[in-house]
């Protein structure tokens, strides 16, 4: 599609409610830094961000500031509460995910949401799963073409403070697609990427600079071929 055909969807895109094929087309125009679509979507983003000013004001609980600050405090041993979850085995992931669905109030809500996503991926009839390793890093990947990827990994290499793990979906044709950043705790991680992963040939993980990369800059230390 050309810019004329998608410009009416800039607002929906900025709101996160656009649908294919317009959503995909706008993403592609943005990826190639389209001189029409980038400023158009930026103006729409500005309007959507401005809508936040219309939200009813509320005071956060005082403890919340401490929780946020503790995320990066040198004294805190718990820096990445959602991105890493915990070093669970696959069976435990499934069990806890089930608990999250049945008893959502018993778990931290963010964890419950991630676990619900994991269950949705793992429960998809179209799901593919493959093991990788040992000897070094070992684990398992669950991939649903329509829903996303669950990575369960142990024996992850140590990370420098300014580095991150980045998950990639490798399509049968084309470049690797970034599928999220995560870190590990106790050298293990469960990571959930919610999002379509069609035509995937493999899932890989690399070490990238903090903030991630658009394309891999290091050799993958996990490659799970589907």
């Amino acid at each position: 599609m050309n810019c004329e055909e998608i410009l009416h969807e800039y607002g929906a895109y900025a709101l996160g409610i656009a649908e294919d094929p317009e959503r995909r087309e706008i993403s592609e125009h943005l990826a190639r830094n389209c001189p029409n679509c980038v400023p158009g979507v930026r103006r729409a983003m500005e309007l959507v961000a401005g809508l936040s000013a219309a939200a009813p004001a509320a005071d956060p609980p005082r403890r919340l500031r401490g929780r946020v600050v503790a995320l990066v405090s040198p004294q805190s041993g718990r820096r990445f509460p959602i991105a890493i979850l915990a070093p669970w085995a696959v069976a435990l992931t499934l069990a806890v995910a089930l608990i999250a669905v049945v008893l959502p109030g018993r778990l931290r809500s963010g964890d419950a949401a991630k676990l619900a996503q994991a269950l949705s991926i793992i429960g998809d009839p179209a799901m593919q799963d493959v093991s990788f390793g040992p000897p070094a890093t070992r684990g398992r990947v669950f991939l649903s073409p329509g829903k996303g990827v669950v990575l369960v990994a142990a024996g992850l290499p140590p990370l420098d403070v300014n580095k991150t793990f980045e998950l990639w979906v490798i399509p049968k044709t084309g470049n690797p697609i970034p599928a999220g950043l995560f870190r590990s705790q106790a050298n293990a991680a469960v990571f959930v990427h919610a999002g379509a992963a069609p035509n995937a040939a493999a899932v890989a993980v690399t070490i990238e600079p903090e903030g991630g990369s658009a394309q891999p800059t290091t050799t993958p230390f996990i490659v799970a071929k589907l």
Partner: protein
Amino acid sequence: MTLFGFLLALNLGGEGDEELVRRLQARDPEALSDLYDRFGKLAWSVILSIVRDAAIAEDLVQETFLRAWNRANGFEASRGALGPWLLTIARNQAIDHVRSQSYRMDRCVYELDATEHPALFLDMESTILNANYARAIRNAITKLNANQRKVIELAYYEGLSQTEMAERMGQPLGTVKTWVRTALKNLRDELGEAAVA
């Protein structure tokens, strides 16, 4: 009461976005505290208005600031609009949660991450978070007709896709798309006039 009152009292002086972004990029833990002090209440208000549960909102605010901390290196300090970026992350966190709770992730696979790309926040007016803008957008929303206001609410607060809105409202998809488009155009026109006035 809306955020208007808070925005009036918000201290917009002091350290600018650029210096704060540089400190975040330098991994200065104090910078995260300062980021929270500047935008924590806004993020909380946005998230709470969407998820309507304080315990969930606490988790999502925490995730919002962690995400900003982890992704600050991709931000262009001299040109990026920090507040709008952070509030976009906050809303996305909340919408992701609402969608996952209602098991709509598989139907609405749109990755909100794309709207958090720092390049989309370059040279953006930081004034969209000041009191005048807040007043103008509230006023502009009141001037939308009922259908236009409804679709904006369903999109912004529930993250419904246009197809889902059409189903919910019992209207053709084309009609809903027109309402969304017209609503956003009217808001923009109204805000433009307010800026001139």
